[in-house]
């Protein structure tokens, strides 16, 4: 069932699985809801302007459909030069006009502007497109340049791109859609790919209904590449066969225990610090997350190694460790007492904590249970509540919680993490829905620093800002970092090698990331 060409290499198709449930025939790359996005094959059809490696965020992006680009000083304008010799899979040439068309499409269709980029003006001259913005895009560089490009000659004929399922996608990528069915989407090699002949003859994307099914498929070899939660991955998956591999690097986005700084007991900084000192991140990592999400044990909350370049010198290499005695000391100094092993706050009330996360989020809940167990060591009575997702969303937004495990956005810099947790611009009174800073952390200093970091073009001044932000984070403990979302994948080296690994971390390895074509072009058949 492969597309003809022989030549010594393996003719094995690559089977890619995702545990995303049934899909519909929808290859609209703009929709997170489309099968193309959900399974990831959008990225092997449509390609971005540049390839940015989130596992090494400090590094510059790699040119992809853009040959080169240039930002102005205050990051309100970018000039992008299109690569030559690229063809759409229908044979039409790819030009800067296509880039301009795509950016305009995003600009004119708010529903497609998923990154909320404030485009102002887009113009073409020759092979260069210039886009201007309403504000500094210093933080959004990768998002602007990560945009995938669609062909103007096709999309301009689509009446409403937000309602289009794009069932015959035409892109520049190394593969083209061959057949689509609910369970298997088959892509075949694009023989006129600008980057050369893709080594894998055929890709088969399968959507498994849930994690169990996906894991079973991985174990049986039915899936060769996937990204799925696997508990105790070493034992469960990797050790099962010597061709089973997993590489789970992290990016700059974390799971943190958001503490409500405007509600007892975490309105008392001593209490937050003490909690930070007794929670066993190692246990949360191994048992709560079953070792799946990356351990974040830096004091700054920045995952290592992705965040190492951004860590303040004073915190470099510093790890958060369990220190019950230290925690008790902090509490005693702050006026806390114990009565028959129960912690009593300075105003004489016993300290009680309710953790909250939605029913069904088993890794979060298991982690919360561990934390709750940890807090018992300093005499805090705690429980875990599990509302429905919706009431949790509402409660967390309104600040109606004491502590919840929640993620942050993933960005090119630590700004997203800290802003999501501490930014005063997101601060809302209790009871009003906030989209971030759920803990109502109110530090004008942090707010100013974050704002400056977002626009200041001077690199060292920015690092300075960051150092100060980190200091506030470490001392004030607005949240307790726990784990970092993995950007990795499980893959089999039975037929193909050349995957990103710890030693060669050239890309985030999930099949649903924009880096997929880069990885695919890097694969080599196993003899």
């Amino acid at each position: 069932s492969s597309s003809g060409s022989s030549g010594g290499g393996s003719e094995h198709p690559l089977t890619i699985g995702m545990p995303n449930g049934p899909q519909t025939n929808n290859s609209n790359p703009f929709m997170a809801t489309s099968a193309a996005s959900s399974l990831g094959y959008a990225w092997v059809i449509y390609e971005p302007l540049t390839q940015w490696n989130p596992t090494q965020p400090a590094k510059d992006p790699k040119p992809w459909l853009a040959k080169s680009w240039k930002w102005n000083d205050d990051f309100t304008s970018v000039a992008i030069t299109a690569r030559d010799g690229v063809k759409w899979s229908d044979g039409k040439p790819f030009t800067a006009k296509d880039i301009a068309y795509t950016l305009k499409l995003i600009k004119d269709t708010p529903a497609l502007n998923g990154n909320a980029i404030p485009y102002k003006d887009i113009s073409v001259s020759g092979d260069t497109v210039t886009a201007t913005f309403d504000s500094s895009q210093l933080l959004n560089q990768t998002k602007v340049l990560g945009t995938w490009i669609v062909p103007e000659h096709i999309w301009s004929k689509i009446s409403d791109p937000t309602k289009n399922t794009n069932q015959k996608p035409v892109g520049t990528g190394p593969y083209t859609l061959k057949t689509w069915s609910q369970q298997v989407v088959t892509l075949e090699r694009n023989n006129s790919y600008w980057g050369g002949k893709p080594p894998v003859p055929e890709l088969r994307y399968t959507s498994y209904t849930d994690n169990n099914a996906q894991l079973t498929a991985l174990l049986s070899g039915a899936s060769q590449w996937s990204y799925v939660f696997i508990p105790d991955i070493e034992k469960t998956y990797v050790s099962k066969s010597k061709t089973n591999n997993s590489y789970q690097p992290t990016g700059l986005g974390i799971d943190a225990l958001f503490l409500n700084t405007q509600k007892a007991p975490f309105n008392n900084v001593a209490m937050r610090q003490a909690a930070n000192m007794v929670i066993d991140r190692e246990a949360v990592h191994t048992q709560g997350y079953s070792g799946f999400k990356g351990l974040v044990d830096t004091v700054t909350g920045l995952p290592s190694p992705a965040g190492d370049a951004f860590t303040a010198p004073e915190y470099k290499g510093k790890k958060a460790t369990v220190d019950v005695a230290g925690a008790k000391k902090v509490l005693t100094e702050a006026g806390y007492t114990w009565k028959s092993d129960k912690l009593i706050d300075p105003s004489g009330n016993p300290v009680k904590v309710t953790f909250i996360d939605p029913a069904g989020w088993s890794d979060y809940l298991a982690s919360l249970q561990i934390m709750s167990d940890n807090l018992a060591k300093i005499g805090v009575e705690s429980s875990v509540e599990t509302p429905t997702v919706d009431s949790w969303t509402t409660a967390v937004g309104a600040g109606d919680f004491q502590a919840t495990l929640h993620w942050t956005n993933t960005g090119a810099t630590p700004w997203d993490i800290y802003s999501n947790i501490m930014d005063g611009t997101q601060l809302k009174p209790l009871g009003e829905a906030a989209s971030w800073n759920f803990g109502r952390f109110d530090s004008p200093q942090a707010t100013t620093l974050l704002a400056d970091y977002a626009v200041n073009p001077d690199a060292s001044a920015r690092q300075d800002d960051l150092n100060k932000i980190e200091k506030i984070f470490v001392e004030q403990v607005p949240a307790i970092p726990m784990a970092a979302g993995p950007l990795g994948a499980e893959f089999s080296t039975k037929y193909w090698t050349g995957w990103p690994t710890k030693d060669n971390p050239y890309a985030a390895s999930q099949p649903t990331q924009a880096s997929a074509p880069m990885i695919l072009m890097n694969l080599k058949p196993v003899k």
Partner: protein
Amino acid sequence: MKYFLRRVAFYLFTAWAAITLNFFIPRMLPGDPVHSLINKFQGRLSTDAIKSLYVLFGLDKHTTIWQDYITYWQNLLHGDLGISFTYFPTPVSEILAQALPWTLALVGFSTIIGFVLGTLAGIGLGWRRGTWADNLLPIANFFSAIPYFWLGLIAISALAVTVQVFPASGGYDPATVPGWSWEFISGAIYHGTLPALTIIISSISGWILGMRNMMVTVSSEDYVTVAQAKGLPERKVMFGYAARNAVLPSISGFALSLGFIVGGTLVAEMVFSYPGIGYMLFQAIGSKDYPLMQGAFLVVTISVLVASMIADFVYAFLDPRTRVEG
């Protein structure tokens, strides 16, 4: 005739009630599809997207519920079930059309097999009651008392994981392309076997027990004794006289219990990751995908109604007494 009219009126009313219920319940659900989507991605979808998603899903407009209800009916009558949020912008009808055949095949097949086998077994057990056959009852009893999903899990664990006889999930062989090819169909049958088997096992015991009790009851009716007195062959007495009458309550029970059965297969589809409508419904509920939820529930309900209508008419066909009396 009157009987039929009454039944049809009843089904129309039930359909109306279900459709209306179907309209109002999702609207009372808290939360919205955008946040559900964000939550589903747990950080992998940037919160920047929230605004664009609201626009995308058309949730930035406000209408009264009454207007909505009218529009809902209008659309429904035009066969328009709206656009799914989860699979935006795929129309719900398309998603359902894709899922329905699987469910129909799986549920229809296993329900009918379960019913037929269970009824036959019940006939046998009821006819030979007081013999060793009675020892089978506790087994049937046990199977009727275990939760379906658990049976499914055990079956997967035993027959798909430990001994890999059957695939653990899916509706057909991923290596094949859906179509009327033998490869595909045999794969689909192969994939459907384990779910079907578990559905049959868990539903069969109910039919067995019900049918057996009816057989025992009917067997002591005079007309069965008369049939024996006439010296009819055993087979004829057993099927033509005893079973033929004993099956009547089962059939009307079948009509009414379809709702339960369909509920059960929803779980089956979830456990076996079967690409059917029940799974869709469950997904839709999770992601606050009202249009899909409504569509799936509607289809499920309407299929139950249609099936039970058929069962009703089969009953009327089998029982001459209903045909004249109200």
